[in-house]
């Protein structure tokens, strides 16, 4: 085959240029550390890398959100820890207030201390979240959640909203609890029903919180959940005959007789400390329709004639009212008559029950926060693992294998050298130089 001189030069130059082009590309790769300089170098890897980068960015955003959630939850947990310790202190004081050796002045002093605890609790309930928002106001971050119209009468201005934050691809968690859930939604009594003395009681009857013996019966549809226990005392002062009746206030009948409630004496005889069961006891009950509401209470001491005790389904009673009731009871003190002492004791009992319920509620919220914190932690560490995985994957896709690239560079250097030298050799062979 004939070779033209132009070909010798053209192809020689071209092969040198090709080598140089390859080396420039390799040099760019080495300088940037990237295997892919433009998408056409590896279209699939480029597109995958873009998607991965989004996942990576999302993942770090979730990590950031998680950190945010932890800080908010920790803040709330701190506030609730304060609430817990305040309530525990108050409860200790309430127990101490039951001490028979206390005088009214001691009680007044306790009331002063409790008042400051009350103010502390109110301040905590209006805590900020560090971003200029109230912690316990639901969605209405700029609204002060608790405002006191008069002592013990605290109105909630927030709502039930829970602020959510996304901590994982498919997980959002609440980072607050509403003031309603923490301070307001607390059932009084034993949580199912509340037993309370009548306001006009004069005797020494002290009622226990009572217990639900059969939840199914209590929750049965026919249960009116509103009863009055009426006492009647006859006989001499030396040997009083105390009897009681249980009235269904909704249907206005005596449960013992099945008829409209009448005057005493009543069918059931009362012994101090004995169980008063909301269940048919025949005899002495004469009600043709037996009843069983699955609950019982105990009354201690000696109720006076006409004293009443109510048993009603629990309703929500906020922790501020509960504390205020305790303060009022302490401030009122005890007078000489038996009724006053019993009223004081009944009031203390109700307050302690209310405080226990409030504590239990706060602890429940704190347990929930703990669970959320744990979940964020889990997501955080999963996210950290994921981040490493994404990094590894991205580096696999995009980054240059330096060892390979450098050895390739050396090889191309050799090739370029050979191309240049051989070009010189070939072109220097020329017949004209011999003429």
């Amino acid at each position, binding site marked *: 085959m*004939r*070779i*033209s001189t132009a070909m010798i030069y053209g192809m020689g130059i071209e092969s040198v240029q090709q080598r140089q082009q390859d080396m420039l590309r390799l040099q760019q790769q080495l300088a940037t550390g990237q295997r892919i300089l433009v998408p056409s170098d590896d279209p699939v890897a480029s597109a995958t890398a*873009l*998607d991965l980068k989004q996942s990576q960015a999302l993942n770090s955003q979730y990590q950031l959100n998680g950190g945010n959630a932890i800080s908010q939850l920790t803040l709330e947990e701190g506030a609730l820890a304060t609430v817990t310790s305040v309530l525990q202190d108050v409860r200790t004081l309430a127990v101490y207030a039951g001490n028979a050796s206390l005088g009214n002045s001691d009680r007044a002093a306790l009331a002063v201390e409790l008042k400051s605890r009350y103010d502390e609790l109110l301040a905590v309930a209006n805590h900020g979240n560090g971003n200029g928002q109230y912690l316990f106001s639901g969605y209405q971050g700029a609204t002060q959640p608790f405002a006191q119209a008069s002592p013990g009468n605290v109105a909630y201005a927030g709502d*039930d909203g829970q602020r959510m*934050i996304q901590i994982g691809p498919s997980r959002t968690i609440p980072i607050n609890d509403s003031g309603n859930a923490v301070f307001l939604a607390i059932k009084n009594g034993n949580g199912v029903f509340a037993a309370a003395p009548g306001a006009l009681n004069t005797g020494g009857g002290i009622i226990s919180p009572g217990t639900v013996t059969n939840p199914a019966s209590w929750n049965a549809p026919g249960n009116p959940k509103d009863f009055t226990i009426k006492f009647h005392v006859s006989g001499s002062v030396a040997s009083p005959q105390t009897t009681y009746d249980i009235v269904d206030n909704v249907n206005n009948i005596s449960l013992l007789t099945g008829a409209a409630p009448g005057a005493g004496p009543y069918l059931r005889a009362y012994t101090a400390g004995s169980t008063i069961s909301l269940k048919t006891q025949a005899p002495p009950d004469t009600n043709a329709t037996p009843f069983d509401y699955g609950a019982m209470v105990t009354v201690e001491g000696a109720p006076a004639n006409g004293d009443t005790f109510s048993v009603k389904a629990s309703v929500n009673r906020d922790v501020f009212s509960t504390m205020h009731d305790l303060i009022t009871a302490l401030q009122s003190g005890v007078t000489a008559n038996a009724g006053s002492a019993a009223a004081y004791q009944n009031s203390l009992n109700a307050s302690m029950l209310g405080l226990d319920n409030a504590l239990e509620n706060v602890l429940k919220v704190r347990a929930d926060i703990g669970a959320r914190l744990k979940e964020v932690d889990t997501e955080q560490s999963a996210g950290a693992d994921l981040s490493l995985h994404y990094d590894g994957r991205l580096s696999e896709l995009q980054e240059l294998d330096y060892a390979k690239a450098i050895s390739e560079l050396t090889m191309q250097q050799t090739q370029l050298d050979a191309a240049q030298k051989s070009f010189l050799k070939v072109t220097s062979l020329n017949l004209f130089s011999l*003429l």
Partner: protein
Amino acid sequence: MSDGIFSIGVSGLAAAQAGLVTTGHNIANASTDGYHRQTIHQSTAIPLATGSGFFGQGTQVDTVLRAYSGFVESQLVDAQSQASYYATYHAQLSRIDNIVANGSVGLSPALQDFFSAAQAVAADPSSIPSRQLMLSAGEALTSRFNALAARFDDIRDGIDSQLTTTVGEINSYAQQIAAINGRILSVQQNATQPPNDLLDQRDLLVSQLNGLVGATAVDQNDGTINLFIGNGQSLVVGQQSMKLAVAPSLNDPSQLDVGYVSAGAVVPLNQASLRGGSLGGLLAFRGNDLDAAQNALGRVAAGLAMTFNDQHQLGQDLSGALGGAFFAAPAPEVFGRSNNVGTAVVAAVISDASALTASDYRLTYTGANYTVTRLSDAATTTYASLPQTLDGVTLSLASGVAGVGDSFLIQPLRSAARNMDMRIEDPARIAAAAPVRTAASGANAGSGTINAGTVNAPPPPNANLQQLVTITFTSATTFDVSGTGTGNPTGVAYTAGANISYNGWTVQLQGSAATGDVFTIAPNSGGVADGRNALLLGGLQTQNTLAGGTTGYQGAYSQLVAEVGNKTRQIDIMSLAQKTVVDQALQTQQSLSGVNLDEEAANLLRYQQAYQAAGKMIQVASSLFQTLLELGR
């Protein structure tokens, strides 16, 4: 006899001289473009018949030939035309390839920043700095879209100007070829010998013309050639050359098309018929890839704007008002063909972002029906009337009446990225909150709970969305609903966990309810710390909102990057392969027609020696004659 020796010597001398001249010409033109090596064709002179036989009369030079093969040449020209096509195509594609995945000018980083900012707003909705950051990130995102669109528009404008230049060059080549045709004709009329160097020049021009556009050369008997391009449009006929010109496209006035000048008017050519050469490369790139890439980018922009706006309008801003549009709504473009006879103005609106494709559409009126053609795959759909919705685009007749044969080009997405803009400037207007909140009454005896509720898509939200609605249980299994807009139904059956939907919201109740339990759905007034809608906005990033619900914003963009990358790679490989074809064709052509200087040096020696030998013959003849003269002395 000595006369014969003398004349043979002279013929040898003349032939050697001709050889030397031709060799010298070859050496001088060794590096001339398009030059074909020339050789002399030598033959014996007519012999002298005598009684003793035929005596040779020396040599004669018949002609000077160029080493030329029409077959090899046409192969080389075709190969070079294709190579030029691929090289241009690849150069244009590389420009997109360089843009789309670039970390500093690509879309992905801006997209991620924007959604990160939305998440930050969700985490702290009342914070003005967070909201401001989201607005800034939104600005950065829209300007990134705008910048990418501007790059695409630059490329499109660049193609227009390259088309203009290329068409000018083509016209110039056509003129020169016609001129050389004329010279060859006049030379051929006077002599029978081939005008080698003129032919070389013409071949070179044809080869250069083919680098610009594929042209077919047809040899004529008189030595001229005719050239045809496209679907057989003549560019050169004998000494006549025709003209090409650029003119705004009939279909899409925003770009130029190549046309054929006939009787002073520009007749549009079928752009797809202009194959090969850099012109073909430019047109193929614009028609196949630039449009598709720009539409794919537009789809991300339009999809983002529409889906984000939809969700944003379901939220509530810091002042308690319902959210407005966050981004400007995309506006499809419709171009009526400039020679339409009717008065119709066609309007196009994007009605479903998820159904959008990256194609343009053509609407034609046949007199009875409207035919819509999806240009990417030529799929047609026929409608008896408008408005109609196809692929998420609703076409309607805005005014006028369509004439028979009228045609409209619909570009739903071409301008979407260019016109991407923010509609919100006040950080407080970001609708981070949900417009309603729910509550269970504290006096409820049952254990029923109500969830936070959601606002029903699509926007606009129900007019009574923010009316106070109360759900009151009349028994454990039924409830009444009261509030403006609900129709105050009574005795609605309660199923735990079932959707309860009125006034454009949906809530679920769980647990067991008791008679008299009350749940309320109220406007979320003062809900500045609520980030529920911002969470949903942030969540759009990972939702498959585009391409029929198969991919998200980033996914659709990655798809564009992959498509551009793949195509660039493919054309790059084609281009490399074509280069090999050219190399081989060139080697074949050069081995036949190229000048080898060593060979010429050898020829130089050969003809020099032949000359010397012939000279010696004359000397011998001369001495023979001298001998005769001395005899007579």
